[in-house]
């Protein structure tokens, strides 16, 4: 999924997929931090932003 997103021109790091168990609280926190940081660095997304009718 990530690879195809990047293939059509989304920036690497825009999309993340992680498998996290309900008991891995620490991993949830770390992942959320990492995703927020990386996406903030990229700025607002410009693709697929047309209004839905």
């Amino acid at each position, binding site marked *: 999924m990530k690879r195809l997103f990047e293939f059509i021109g989304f920036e690497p790091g825009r999309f993340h997929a992680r*498998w996290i168990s309900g008991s891995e609280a620490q991993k949830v926190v770390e992942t959320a931090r990492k995703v927020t940081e990386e996406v903030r660095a990229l700025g607002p997304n410009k693709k697929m932003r047309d209004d839905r009718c």
Partner: protein
Amino acid sequence: MLKEKIKSTVTELLENKRIDFVIGYGAGSDAGTVRPAFVKSVEEVEQLIWSPFAVNNLAKFVMDHLYENIKIGVIVKGCDSRSVIRLVQDKVFPRENFYVIGVPCKGILDKNKVAKDFDLSGDLVDFTEQGDEVILKTSKGEFKLRKEDYLLDKCYRCETPTPVVYDVLLGEEVAPFRTDDYEDVKAIENLSVEEKSRYWDKQFEKCIRCYACRNVCSACNCRDCVFDMAEPNWVGKAANLSENTAFHLIRAWHVAGRCVDCGECSRVCPMGIPVNTLNRKMIKDMKELFAVETPGKNPEQGPVLGTFRTDDPEEFM
């Protein structure tokens, strides 16, 4: 001649009532076109032809006859035979209801490429192949061309010139003589992020959402399609860049691991969007990640993404 072989095989099958009807190729509106022909009786066998332009994948037409429990003969080339495996593996149409008439194929001519240099507006009367040359006898004149210069793009990377599944094979087996290098996919992969985005935006903008790519696809065999649903409205129906991008991504993901790379989606697109390149990107990734073959090439290999393996690379963990 292949045409005569097809006719005699089909006549025999129909006479002995071994099949209910045959899906084959009939003459199209001009020399470069063929149309699907549905032959139900011996009298109709005359419509069947073979042409160096016989590009259509006929396997999916069996889906008009689900639950009818009839035996259908289908004429398939190497690439189309993978679609037969697709439909059987997806349990859409049982193998025993197929009678697969295999045609070994050394490449099909691209009508658009040939039409640039020759007048194809007449009828195709006959054709002969000598080595790598084809002589097309049409009602508008006789044309001699080098096959290698005018093949469909997919034929230059064909790995299964002989059908992978058949009940009868018309002609000598053709050993695989080409390999797929995924140059078309690599060319886009090597672009920068902005260039990729611009390239695909330009393509998806053109989409008129006719769903021809879905309708022709042998992996798109669901009874209810997510793109037809209004309640819930999974995908917006508006033809704008965002919704079109969503449509093309979802379409590609829904056939991921099952797409047999027959290339029909790109061929039928009225707007010339390289739809199949999205599928090919995923096939390339899957080959790299899971060391599999093109789906449908090996009947033993199940759907790539529906198979559990302990050595999965698990990039998402």
